[in-house]
């Protein structure tokens, strides 16, 4: 079994228990409305993360490391935190969610982009301060 299948029988049994559950949920999606859009989003999710987002940030990190050497953390950490906020709160910062929000609730997203920029400035200010303190303690 191990030689032909490549793992223990338990490995196969675990798949045979849980993959049918996945298949059931996927079949419910395929049998429901907008099935093709949901499938496109599911495929795009893994492709965009693994083959676009990750290579992009890893490549940017490589450029930063080459340019900054030992000081790289003082730039990449605040930069990563800022971009993470931008990504997670994109709909309020870039106001892509504002149309539906205004139509539903009568409100607008106010100042999110400004507060994100201020938070970014604060992160880099903290980072710069930490860099100066470390350099000062070394010299």
């Amino acid at each position, binding site marked *: 079994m191990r030689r*032909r*299948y*490549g*793992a223990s029988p338990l*490995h*196969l049994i*675990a*798949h045979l228990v*849980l*993959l049918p*559950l*996945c298949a059931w*949920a*996927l079949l*419910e*999606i395929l049998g*429901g*409305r*907008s099935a093709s*859009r*949901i499938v496109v*989003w*599911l*495929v795009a*999710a*893994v492709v*965009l*993360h*693994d083959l676009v987002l*990750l290579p992009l940030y*890893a490549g940017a990190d490589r450029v930063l*490391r080459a340019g900054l050497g030992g000081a*790289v*953390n003082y730039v990449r*950490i605040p930069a*990563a*935190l800022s971009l*993470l*906020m931008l990504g*997670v*709160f*994109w*709909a*309020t*910062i870039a106001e*892509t*969610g*504002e149309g*539906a*929000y205004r*139509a*539903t*609730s*009568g*409100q607008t*997203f106010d100042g*999110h982009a400004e*507060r*994100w920029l201020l*938070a970014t400035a604060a992160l880099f200010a903290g980072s710069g301060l930490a860099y100066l303190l470390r350099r000062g303690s070394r010299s």
Partner: protein
Amino acid sequence: MIPPPGPFRPTFWRSPLRGPWLTSALGSVLLVLVSIVIVTGFLSHVAYEPNLRGNAIVPAGADLPLLFSWPTAPTYLYAVTQGLHVNVGIAAVPLLLAKLWSVIPRLFAFPPIASPAHGLERLSVALLVSSAVFEFVTGIMNAQYWYAFGFNFVVAHYYGAVVFTAALALHVTLKTPVILRAYRERGWLRPLRDDLAHTTPEPGDEHGGLVAEDPDPPTISRRGLFAFVGGASALLLVANVGQTIGGPLRSLAFLAPRREDFPVNRTARRAEITPAMVGAAYRLRLTGGPADVALARADLLALPQHTARLPIACVEGWTTTQEWTGVRLSELAAAAGLDAAAVTGAYVRSLQPRGVLSKASLNGDQVRDADSMLALKVNGADLPLDHGFPARIIVPALPGVHNTKWVASIDFGTAA
């Protein structure tokens, strides 16, 4: 077989931090967080009571048989479960990204499928990563009103969660021996003791392909990476959690969509409620009793009034707590000629002419709870039109949108 150049070659991957211990440690923390998100997510499905008339969004009977009658106590129950779902979900994003980064070399394993077992496992991992990213992206977009999906969010998020949960259970089952071995060989926390100068690659893992063959010098220690990821989680949490907790924290939630103290989920205008519908001609219809009853707002104000301070908690993760005054639902059941103890539920319709949430059913306990009411006032003043004037449902621990606004009729159900 010699792998093609690029990421398929083991020497392509240079981080000295990657290895079974790092992935196990990141995965263990992530597992705790996503377990909270999964449980509270399915609890939210339960809280919507999809088996009652008019409540199902995921087609009735096509969901997992995991339903129970949602309780009314504690009053902040749904605020807590849904607040955890949204906020822990947001805080888990950096861990998910770090975990996926830690295993990316395995995407380019060569040969791509070494055995039937390997092929099956790669299929399950593809389902896991795909459903994980899908669930996080759609959930976060929905909580911020970015409805760019072109599909029904609730349905897709529910079935996506089933795929995610099953694929995760499978992954954890298969990886437990690998995780335990990593902890046994390298200690639970020992690699976190090393500062940057002492950060070295993990001892080789002959099957894993995670430890770099030709590593670069480290630029951050493992504990530095954990502080980085944990700090990112904390930052995202601070940016959002105030809309759930309320009070002075609300203004601290600097990127959250809901920053006002008493948010309006849906305006009267959006719901197509006109002044004529809520004017002098307004009558609340009570059905299900021996004879139908119609009550004007003045009639409702003449009934015994009850006041309670109760939260409204939205599926989007925000909460607001206000002081509501109105007529107990059990009192209305009596007004309809029914013994409240015999009521098994109530089907509430709004004046709102259309929309998924123009109607909602309550279970028997929710009708009978001493704090459940048809609210006429909030904080001592008449309900504002946008908050449901002339009358709205307020039930403890009920998902926000089931507290129907602009109530037109209540149809009480009895067992007989």
